[in-house]
């Protein structure tokens, strides 16, 4: 009997938990009001990512370094579930240190700093809100001239380097284990193997076999998608980039180069982009590739509201073709990165995708048909994929390889062993820090210097701008920037295979054109850091090695305006009159009243629009609740069965 009671209790508890979790998971409407910080000293929690040894090691070193300037920055490794949940939804972390990740052009700048990205799942998770930056970013994204745009980007970086939502630290560089008999790979920022590194794909060859060699690469897990639109994660994207072509590609210095488009022009107003296609491209099923396919691809993205490449597609007005090999893209507004973004759009065969949805789960047995240097050959789901060279590839004399096989080896040590024995020839990702020493001495591998390229993973230390006054204070963050020896971080966390980054668009990655000789940077200088904090009033009063928050500024009249800013420190007053009571003219009052009234009118109008929107939502909800009722019936039935069952047992 006892047992039955316990099991009934368990059921009740489970149901209660379901409801409780449900209640908690409802997001509170509106912005949470920031609690006033009661922090008395400069002591913070800095979160690092527990599975990422670079993040953890760098975090520990930073903790030590900041002790020298009287800041306690406790490095706490957390699992990515906890960490990302907080960045995406809860937003109440203090400081974190890990990597973000670059695209081949500085596309990260806008999402990381634009205030429109301060939202759940937004990239601006530190809530950096500066209208000046917003305006400059919008301006840069519209500016077609490269040099003018770069100057705007320099200005943006200088402003951000004063406000410091995050401090760039270093990139963990890509050093690859690849067997020494392979040549022809091209070192590009992001690594010798990367989805935008098409030069490696077509040039890779065996030293004794210029053409036709079989290359085997180890993957840590199987690719996620066969669908070229969705295959944007690193593993799928490499395979997609070999089977499908884009209009443009990148060279080793991250300049745009022709690919499927042998040339392109952008009109001076930026509203017309004309691509001239190569004329002998064929799909893998021997259908010629023409401008119709390119037009189809762009229309496909637009018509189906494909959620990828939204910044580009939402700015395209329409596309037309001129003959079989010219595509004219009409933009709705000038967009600075339009051609760069086309590097990310796989051109798809119209004769196959015409009646398909964008999220069509391409079945691998149907052999994904592209136009790229490699053709889909065979696969075993979950274990391996074999691509073979496309004999009819439009670029004469390429690719060199005969076949390219991807093989899943889940465990990192097993991958390394497989490369050492020659069972596979390289792996998809860079060497784990733990294997670098071993690989450097392995005579079967190419020297690490040859495979060492600037990495795409940029590590930074980010400060939540929402709550802590000390973390909003540029002085504290600048002092932290001065107190971190970035080269030492690289030497410890990545054994030297890293590149120190001082700016938000480091020229080491994005190309020398982004190099700004006058950029605001912070040389390692502990003395200066300590002086800055002293001057700003952060003093270690209780001599425990950690600086206290500065005493609040005196405010004799208690009107919330410190005496230094108060024109009338003895009488409580309004901020708009400099802290003085202020005399209000009658006409001004009337004008204010009119302003207030017109504001109310426009508010009412907004409310009406909002109400209309809500009506629509409610209609949609009604529809979905009909569906719900079926399910609810099912659950009720089940609960009833369980209840009856336990009832009958007595």
């Amino acid at each position, binding site marked *: 009997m006892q047992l039955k009671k316990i099991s009934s209790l368990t059921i009740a508890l489970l149901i209660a938990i379901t409801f409780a979790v*449900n209640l908690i998971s409802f997001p509170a409407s509106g912005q949470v009001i920031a609690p006033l910080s009661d922090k008395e000293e400069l002591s913070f929690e800095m979160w690092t990512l527990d599975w990422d040894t670079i993040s953890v090691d760098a975090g520990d070193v930073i903790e030590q370094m900041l002790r020298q300037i009287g800041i306690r920055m406790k490095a706490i490794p957390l699992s990515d579930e906890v960490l990302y949940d907080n960045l995406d939804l809860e937003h109440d972390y203090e400081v974190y240190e890990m990597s973000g990740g670059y695209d081949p052009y500085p596309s990260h700048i806008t999402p990381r700093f634009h205030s429109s990205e301060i939202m759940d799942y937004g990239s601006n998770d530190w809530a950096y809100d500066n209208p000046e930056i917003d305006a400059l970013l919008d301006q840069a994204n519209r500016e077609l001239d490269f040099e003018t745009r770069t100057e705007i980007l320099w200005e943006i970086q200088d402003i951000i380097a004063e406000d410091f939502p995050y401090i760039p630290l270093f990139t963990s560089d890509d050093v690859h284990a690849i067997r020494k008999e392979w040549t022809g790979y091209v070192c590009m920022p992001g690594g010798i193997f990367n989805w935008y590194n098409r030069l490696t794909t077509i040039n890779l060859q065996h030293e004794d076999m210029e053409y036709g060699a079989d290359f085997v690469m180890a993957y840590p897990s199987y690719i996620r998608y066969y669908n070229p639109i969705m295959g944007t994660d690193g593993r799928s994207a490499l395979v997609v980039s070999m089977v499908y072509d884009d209009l443009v590609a990148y060279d080793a210095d991250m300049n745009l180069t022709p690919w499927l488009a042998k040339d392109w022009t952008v009109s001076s107003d930026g509203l017309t982009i004309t691509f001239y296609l190569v004329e002998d491209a064929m799909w893998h099923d021997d259908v010629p590739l023409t401008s119709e396919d390119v037009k189809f691809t762009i229309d496909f993205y637009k018509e189906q509201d494909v959620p990828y490449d939204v910044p580009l597609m939402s700015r395209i007005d329409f596309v037309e073709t001129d003959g079989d090999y010219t595509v004219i893209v009409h933009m709705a507004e000038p967009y600075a990165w339009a051609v760069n973004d086309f590097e990310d759009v796989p051109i798809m065969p119209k004769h196959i995708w015409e009646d398909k949805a964008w999220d069509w789960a391409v079945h691998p047995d149907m052999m994904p048909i592209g136009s790229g240097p490699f053709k889909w050959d065979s696969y075993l789901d979950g274990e391996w994929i074999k691509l073979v060279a496309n004999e009819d590839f439009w670029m004469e004399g390429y690719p060199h390889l005969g076949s390219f096989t991807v093989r899943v080896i*889940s465990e990192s040590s097993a991958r390394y062993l497989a490369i050492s024995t020659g069972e596979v020839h390289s792996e998809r990702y860079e060497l784990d820090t733990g294997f670098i020493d071993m690989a450097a001495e392995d005579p079967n591998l190419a020297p690490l210097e040859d495979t060492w390229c600037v990495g795409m993973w940029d590590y930074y230390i980010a400060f939540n701008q929402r709550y802590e006054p000390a973390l909003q204070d540029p002085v504290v963050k600048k002092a932290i920037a001065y107190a971190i020896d970035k080269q030492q971080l690289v030497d410890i966390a990545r054994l030297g295979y890293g590149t120190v980054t001082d700016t938000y668009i480091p020229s080491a990655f994005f190309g020398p054109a982004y190099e700004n000789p006058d950029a605001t940077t912070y040389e390692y200088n502990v003395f200066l850091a300590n002086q800055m904090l002293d001057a700003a009033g952060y003093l270690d009063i209780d001599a425990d090695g950690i600086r206290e928050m500065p005493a609040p500024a005196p405010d004799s009249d208690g009107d919330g305006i410190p005496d230094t800013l108060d024109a009338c420190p003895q009488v409580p007053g309004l901020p708009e009159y400099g802290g003085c009571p202020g005399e209000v003219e009658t006409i001004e009052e009337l004008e204010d009243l009119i302003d207030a009234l017109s504001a109310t009118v426009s508010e009412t109008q907004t409310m009406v629009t909002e109400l209309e929107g809500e009506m629509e939502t409610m209609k949609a909800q009604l529809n979905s609740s009909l569906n719900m009722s079926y399910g609810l019936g099912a659950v009720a039935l089940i609960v009833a069965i369980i209840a009856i069952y336990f009832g009958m047992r007595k």
Partner: protein
Amino acid sequence: MGFKEYVGKRTLQGFVTILLAITLNFILFRIMPGDPTRAVSGDPRVDTATRLALIAKFGLDRPLFEQFVLYFYNLLRGEMGISFVQIGRPVVSIILGRKMVNTLVLMGSSMFLAFILGIAVGVVAAWRRGTKTDVSFVLLSLATYSMPVFWFGMLLLMLLSYHLHLVPIAGTITAGVAHPNFLAYAADYLHHLIAPMMTLAVSFFGGYFLFMRDTILDVFTEDYMLTARAKGLSDRKILFKHAMRNALLPMVSLMGVHVTFLISGATLTETVFSWDGLGRLIYDSVRNNDYPVLQGIFLIMAVLVVIASISADIANAYLDPRIKEAA
């Protein structure tokens, strides 16, 4: 209570257990920390707009209770949903396919090997109780029993693949090769099976061996062993005809308990050897918060266990009238 009623009651119990398992399944994965929407988008560099669209596509922006209700509704219609990670792949086809066969083969063969070895060595050790043979086997089995299986797997991999080049390093089959016939395929498959099978067999061996040895030692104290001796039977006959037969019964029920492993697989071993089975699928899915796949695996496992235990109970009841009466 009659036999039919007993069967009916057990079936009803099993049904309720499965319903509870479904509920638990759903709740367990959702009270774990971790946001499945990240699994859906996969890449940290994905645009916010893309992420939001994918989240909405999977209904992850809906309230949890609504998700639960829809989950139940879909289960009733026989749908387990589609994987978050391999978008577009139905969960059922991911689980009930090659991965399940791989796991069955690996676990089946290694458990069988360990079982046979455990019995054989267990009998010998028990017979020579207290001798050097016995003590060394007990020590050995304790060592293998307490050894971390992934560590032993790595050592084996180092020795057999890296130094001796005897077995391939990973996978269930040679990559990129079209096999001319089934025999060649099977030979290749078995070649890949050797290392993971050995690892698991060694890790299972200790448990079976110790259990067998203890049971036989127990049997030796029974009166009928004395009788057998008094009858003047040979040692060999006593050992194999009387002691071992009786000791096998508990071994077989232990084996029955372990049948679940056949499905759940050995996560660590499968990962070390890149054996593409359900154990590794569980590991990958937990890491990626792939709820639909996890729910699917655990549901299938729960159903199988419930069916297995009900069938065992019913069979026992049929064979042994005492159980019926007790119930």
